[in-house]
């Protein structure tokens, strides 16, 4: 087996199928999108090359920056919610009764499709018949908020199901990482008189730092390109109040027939995601790898 794997030609042969797939399905479209972004194209007729005109329009497009602001806001909320996920995982990974059951309960939203979740929350948020407003009315609030119609709260109303949706995923990752910490370390700390809080803070969290870094990147990049739930629930409305970069891109390309501009937004979104990933990696870089 070792001999097979050390033969360069054979390595190349085995890598080839996957490489071809990823090139044709991922990298070629990215390059093409970059090229379309330099053209004026309605998606139907002729393409005309216009250089960087789409990008200069993008830089001054206040609607785009508004949607970018919403995307970054979502990223910030996602990262903050990671703290809550981590806390839940710390509790679950301790020896408490029913941890297994709770772990499964938290995982359920992840098993639902985004569209189903969106439909569920549209009903929860219904202005007159929704569970949310029925509850608020029953405790005496006479004029409950119009969750999806009020431009000042619609964005946050949508963040809640998004954060709920991904809870299970991150809790699962943290839980697995925490379970990997050798029992002996925790026991040694206990013998030395460390409180559970100290164990969590000073031993468990530092030991899974590398996993936490990965989840931060996942949460930020996932938020920047987030699309589906928002599209189903509000289509970015009312009047752009819940527009994010991906929905703005979709609107331009498919609703307004401006494929050139849509492609430019898509390519710019890719650059932003790459840049942010790089910055996060720089900020969270540590020299020493903790080992156990």
């Amino acid at each position: 087996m070792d001999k097979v794997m050390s033969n360069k030609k054979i390595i190349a042969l085995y890598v080839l199928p996957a490489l071809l797939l990823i090139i044709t399905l991922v990298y070629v479209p990215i390059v093409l999108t970059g090229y379309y972004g330099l053209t004026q194209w309605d998606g139907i007729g002729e393409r005309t090359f216009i250089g960087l005109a789409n990008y200069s329009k993008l830089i001054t497009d206040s609607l785009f920056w508004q949607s970018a602001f919403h995307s970054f806001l979502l990223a910030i909320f996602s990262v903050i919610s990671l703290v809550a996920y981590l806390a839940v995982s710390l509790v679950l990974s301790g020896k408490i009764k029913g941890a297994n059951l709770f772990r499964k309960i938290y995982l359920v939203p992840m098993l639902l499709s985004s569209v189903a979740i969106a439909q569920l929350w549209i009903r929860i948020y219904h202005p007159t018949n929704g569970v949310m407003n029925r509850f608020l009315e029953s405790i005496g609030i006479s004029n409950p908020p119009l969750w999806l119609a009020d431009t000042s709260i619609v964005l946050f109303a949508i963040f809640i199901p998004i954060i709920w949706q991904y809870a299970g995923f991150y809790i699962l990752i943290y839980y697995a990482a925490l379970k990997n910490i050798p029992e002996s370390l925790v026991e040694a700390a206990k013998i030395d008189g460390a409180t559970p809080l100290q164990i969590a803070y000073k031993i468990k969290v530092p030991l899974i730092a590398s996993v936490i870094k990965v989840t931060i990147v996942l949460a930020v990049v996932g938020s920047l390109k987030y699309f589906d739930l928002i599209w189903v629930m509000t289509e970015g409305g009312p009047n752009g109040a819940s527009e994010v970069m991906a929905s703005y891109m979709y609107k331009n390309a498919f609703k307004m027939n401006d494929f050139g501009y849509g492609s430019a937004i898509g390519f710019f979104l890719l650059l932003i995601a790459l840049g942010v990933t790089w910055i996060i990696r720089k900020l969270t870089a540590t020299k020493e790898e903790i080992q156990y």
Partner: protein
Amino acid sequence: MLKKAHSLLLLSVALLLFVLSACGDADSDSNEDSNGGSNEGETSGVDGDKEAVTIDFMHLWPAGVSAGQNKIVNEIIEQFEAENPHVTVVQEVLENEQYKTKLQVVSSSNQLPDVGMTWAAGFLEPYVKGNLFAPLDGLLENGFGDTFVSGTLEAYAMDDQTYALPLELNIAPIYYNKAIFADHGLDVPETYDEFLNVVETLVDNGVAPIALGNRDRWTGSLWYMYLADRIGGSEALNTAIDRSGTFENPKLIEAASETQNLVNMDAFVRGFNGLSNEEAKAEFLNGSAAMYLMGSWELPNFTTNEEIPQEFRENVGFFKFPTIEGGDGNIDSWVGGPGVGLFVAENSDVKEEAMEFVKFFVEKWGEQSVTGAGVIPGTAVDTSTLDLPQLYIDVLNELANASNITLFADVQMSAGVAETHLNMIQSLFGNEVTPEEFAQTHEEALSLEE
């Protein structure tokens, strides 16, 4: 052992490649069936004295969701093939959104089907500019053009040439719940003041007057369009859109502020800006809202649809948008317009047969669509010979008496301006812009296109 592992890996690679290539094959096959055929259309076989040809026909009425339409389509195709034995019509059926996407994709590689469906005005424009649709004026000679309801063909025309023939025509009346009106002693309003009185009475009695799902935005646009028509006359909005007039016309600004007046009176259901049209329709269907302004495509739900309680269906009536005192509008002027129409691809190899098929289809469709599918066709319908629910007959008669039909604003506009218009509608209803800003933003968007 080593050899075994090696060959096992090799085998799996070979398998993977085989599966992949099989996928590829299947793909290219289906492409050939659906759209590639338009280029290689006629092939083998001679029938009588004519060469056998194939017409590729793409439409959006699947047997499941549009059972009535689908049945008629199949019958028409059978008849056409029986009368023209050398022609075979191959259908490709997709649902609405997928249809739009597919049409866009195949047109960018210039592989449109020989005959397909398109929407009017703004949707049609890029296809015509890209030289993808064939002009159909030749078909309209010898009186065929006169069978269409006046004003409908124009929606598919650019530069004095018609590029598609309509299959659907709709107007938007205000449906109302007779039971709710009777409970509160209300009559059908004929003037706008009476209408405001109806709204006020319902609000005072805790009934939501109007179901509106303005998340979809074109729904709110209907209300603005009617107010614009009743205040400024049928030309005010049209001229503003085609740039011979302006949105800063005081009458259009008045229409916008009247829209906000309705909002401030609580005329619409709570949270309308976050509700979809389907959710709003549910409010009307379950009797919690008294009125609903919507296209005549909803008629089956109020007449023949067995899924909706008969008691409710018997209680639905409609009225025309009332006239406003001092306004220039006519009560017989409607907001509405044609839905889908048939086009022939410019690069079709079987253009002659395709044209014949389109003409045949439109004629036969007009005879059956109301009774068979509940769809009002673009051609005039003779109500005296048809056995129809009364509500249909009333709407068809109104259609025959219509003094004008103003095409839906978002359909009239190009896609980019329509997006601005729809966003502005949502803001106007949400009281986030003033009527003046509403007008100004439209002006800016339209002037960018000039």
